[in-house]
């Protein structure tokens, strides 16, 4: 589903964020990507949704070589990948329901589809009763779940969650992880970026470890090794 081959990413002359990264993720897999702060995890996510382009190497997502993706094709790519961003990225001026609907509106989905999908994804994350609230009226965990709901509206084949539990306490973290596992059970490939030792150790799924921009570990049933 996701294939990276000898990918390098440099920001300017000095910062070499990813160094010769090669990895392959099969459909329906649940993979944790771990590593310390600043090792290039988010950079990898940005490459996968063409927010940044690689300095060298090739990137294939769902059979589509996006290494030199054309600008007008980028929206198409992003509608096929669900992303939960590290900094959540909800629109403060829109209600929960509108935030979720927004992702469908911008892609030109008909109203009927929006009114049927939005309550469904909010139900999956357990927020169907908070549809009329504004983001600031929600807890951190709830906001993260709204972002998760939004990432699901296109029924993506791949879901990427960049530290979705970064600022959450243990119960909220568990809830989010359980949701991700459920989504994975539906058949969605999940890439979870985290540096939460406990989460990774409890999952008992594949773990890819990044350090200083390089892949230093890839275990089938992994633990947090740093």
């Amino acid at each position, binding site marked *: 589903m996701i294939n990276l081959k000898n990918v390098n990413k440099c920001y300017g002359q000095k910062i070499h964020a990813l160094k010769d990264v090669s990895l392959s993720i099969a459909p329906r897999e649940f993979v944790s990507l771990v590593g310390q702060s600043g090792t290039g995890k988010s950079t990898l996510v940005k490459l996968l949704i063409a927010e940044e382009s690689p300095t060298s190497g090739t990137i294939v997502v769902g059979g589509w070589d996006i290494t030199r993706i054309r600008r007008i094709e980028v929206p198409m790519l992003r509608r096929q990948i669900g992303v939960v*961003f590290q900094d959540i990225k*909800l629109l403060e001026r829109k209600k929960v329901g509108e935030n979720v609907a927004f992702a469908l509106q*911008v892609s030109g989905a008909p109203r009927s589809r929006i009114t049927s999908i939005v309550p469904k994804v909010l139900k999956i994350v357990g927020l169907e009763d908070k549809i009329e609230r504004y983001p600031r009226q929600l807890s951190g965990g709830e906001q993260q779940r709204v972002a998760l709901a939004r990432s699901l509206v296109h029924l993506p084949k791949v879901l990427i969650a960049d530290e979705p539990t970064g600022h959450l306490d243990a119960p909220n973290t568990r809830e989010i992880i359980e949701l991700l596992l459920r989504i994975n059970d539906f058949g969605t490939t999940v890439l979870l970026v985290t540096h939460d030792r406990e989460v990774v150790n409890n999952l008992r799924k594949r773990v890819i470890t990044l350090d200083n921009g390089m892949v230093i570990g890839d275990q089938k049933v992994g633990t947090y090794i740093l």
Partner: protein
Amino acid sequence: MWLVTFFRAGGFALQNVFRNFSLSLVTVLIMVVTVFSVNIVLVLQLLGVTALQSVQERIDVSLYLKQEVDEQAARGLQSYMRQLAQTESVDLLLRDRVLAQFQDRHAEEPSVMQSLKALGDNPFGSVLIVRATEPQFYQLLIDTINASPYAQLIEKQDFEDHRQVIGKISNVTDRLRHIGIGITLLFLLITMLIVFNTIWIKLYTHQEEIGIMKLVGAGNWFIRMPFFIEGLIYAVLAVAAALGLFFSFADTLQPYVNDFFDGTAINVVAYFSERLPLLFAVEFGGLAVLTLIATTVAMRRYLKV
């Protein structure tokens, strides 16, 4: 799907209009000023043309025939004049009518009436009033008559040369029009800058939102369209407001126009009312093109989509 996108973008555009309302207001105001000044130029143009016409209509040559010329001879001259290509109209005032008119005009002046009586019989000859199709033909007409056998019937010809007046009027209206066009161009430039600035500020304040739109899969057009539609909304509002303002201005102006052209006046409001759809379409179209250009430039520079 395209239509859905359009209406959705329209919705976002409306939100944008109200979100930074004072900025929107300033933008519309400068557009109103611009459209209004365009309309003023049009009025100046109209009044200039009307003034010229009304002067041209008043030009004529009066041929005073000798007292002894009888009606038949006078009519002969009239029909001769009529068949000349350069004449618009040739009116004959027979000597009895001329006398009657003179008596009417001076009825209140006993001394004049006295001296008229002292002259005995009707002292007037018939008069031919000749209008040419174009002002520049008068000299030609006069020369033609003088060269013809009819010349001996004529006592005196009275041709006031209005060319100087006409020249003066064209000069003034031309100059007013140039000033008006200059001011309008200036306003157009200012409008362009203001629209550019407005869109830039809006892009800046929407940065985060635009970023999120892109990240959740919005296409270029979906991001751009609300800004274009926003510009078009400003243009519609501005043209409507400017025309409203303009018509009430024209209404106030009308009595002065009537005075100036005493009676032969043109109705400014009616003139522009008749052409309202065209006026609206052209002015909205112009403003729309202008905002689209300013928006495109602003987005080229500040929106990396």
